[in-house]
């Protein structure tokens, strides 16, 4: 496991922010304000929950981090890169520094577990030898070494999410963004996924997890960013969920 994430072996957050947003605002062409004056700094190695009701701006927050959108104003820096000054050709490089998983897994149904993970390496020009070496290690990391040749339809929800996590880790990212990763899972499986994310975080990868799962947030007592109506209304370390969204 350490050989996969060997560049970051510390488990405590450091002072250097891996994500920073300064006065970030995002207004859509129809006038809807998605984010307003958001200031956030997330140090490398942190584990942060992003909470808020539907429409609070969580998705926009994530889209800005992976540069799917640019803010209307303000500055966004991710993994040492200024996203506003970044050229289009540099975006793939940024995205290899960020792993992302979704509630709906987004696996390719006609590819096996191993092929889904290998696909992320193939499409970025990684050699076949590296892919053959790396994929089994990643599957072992997420506990799917015995399911390498199964299709997604032959897997449980938890196993599908593990596959998505393995795929997100192929480039040894500095940040792992999990957008409602337990949204489609039962409580037991949700905890297994959370344990896996904690394990990944302990190896030094910064984890940002958007969630509605009150139980998980309260049990973890990690930093919580709460968005409401596009405003950052709470940013507390070791916090609880506080209210029902």
């Amino acid at each position, binding site marked *: 496991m350490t050989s996969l994430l060997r560049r970051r072996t510390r488990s405590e957050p450091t002072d250097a922010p891996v994500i920073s947003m300064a006065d970030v605002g995002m207004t859509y062409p129809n006038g809807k304000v998605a984010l307003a004056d958001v200031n956030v700094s997330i140090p490398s190695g942190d584990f942060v929950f992003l909470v808020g009701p539907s429409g609070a701006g969580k998705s926009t927050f994530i889209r800005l981090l*992976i540069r*799917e959108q640019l803010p209307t104003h303000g500055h966004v820096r991710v993994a040492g890169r200024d996203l506003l000054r970044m050229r*289009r*050709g540099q975006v*793939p*490089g*940024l*995205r*290899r520094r960020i792993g*992302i998983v979704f509630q709906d897994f*987004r696996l*390719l149904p006609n590819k096996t577990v191993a092929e889904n993970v290998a*696909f*992320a390496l*193939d*499409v*970025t*020009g990684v*050699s*076949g030898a590296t892919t053959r070496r790396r994929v089994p290690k990643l599957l072992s990391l997420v506990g799917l070494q015995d399911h390498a040749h199964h299709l997604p339809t032959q897997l449980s929800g938890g196993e599908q999410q593990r596959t998505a996590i393995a*795929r*997100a880790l*192929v*480039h040894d990212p500095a940040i792992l963004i999990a957008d409602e990763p337990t949204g489609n899972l039962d409580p037991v499986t949700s905890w297994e996924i959370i344990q896996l994310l904690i394990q990944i975080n302990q190896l030094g990868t910064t984890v940002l997890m958007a969630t509605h799962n009150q139980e998980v947030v309260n049990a973890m007592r990690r930093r919580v960013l709460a968005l409401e109506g596009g405003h950052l209304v709470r940013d507390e370390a070791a916090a609880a969920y506080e209210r029902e969204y």
Partner: protein
Amino acid sequence: MPFVRFIGFSVVRAWQGFWRNAMMSLAATATVILMLVLLAALFIVISGLNAGLEFIESKVAVTARLEDNLTEQRVERLIAEVEAMPGVATVEYVSPEEAMDRLEASYREIGRELDLGDPDSPITLFASLEITLSDPDASADVSTALSQHGAVERVLTKQAEYDTLLGIIDVIRTVGIVGIGLVGLTVLFMIINTIRIAVYSRANEIEIMRLVGASDSFIRWPFILEGILCGLIGAVITIFLVAAVWDPIQPAMVQVFQMPTAVSTRFLTTLSLLLLAVGLGVGAIGAWISVRSYLAAAR
């Protein structure tokens, strides 16, 4: 090595994509074949007519019909005068008897017999000089000089036939280019549509590729190669079709245009290269337009 991996990845994905979307890909390929067959037909006809044009240029350019009862010496003097004119290549004397033989032969060729009327009052044709030119532009000067000569009854040139043929070529070329342009546009839209369907059917894959950091080239080129594949397959099939009908075309051309239309031996190679270039070009441009608009929308 990364470039080789990129090429390998793109080619394999293009091949898979072509067959995954087989019906649309084959329909696009069929329209490419249609366009290239029309292009080949136009190219063959225009080339044949151009060969005919060259043939007319190289043959008798000016015919001088001579007055009756010229003495042999006078005819020889006239031949010497004409041979001395600038731009003249050869001068051939055609006697009335020889002219009659030619006329009868031309009737026999088309299966008819020349009816000369009453054998007691035979028809006599004019003697003439058939003049070929080394410089086709000298036609006007030679004609003017001959028409002012006392021994010449009338001057006939091939200029009118030449102009008529040029006119036909222009019309065929214009109609052909417009037709090929319209079919070309249809092909372009077919390929744009085919690739667009392929792109949309693989939207999930593209989304994942973008999220895991695939460059635009890795996303774009498999689709462009898929378009090129439609063009390539279309061009190769068309080349085989043209090669298959090549031998029957030659006599048909002679029959249709009433002139030798033989073209150089390199003609098939040139035509094949043209078909290949147009097929690949249309495939690549159509696919590029399709993918470009999709990627521009999904940044």
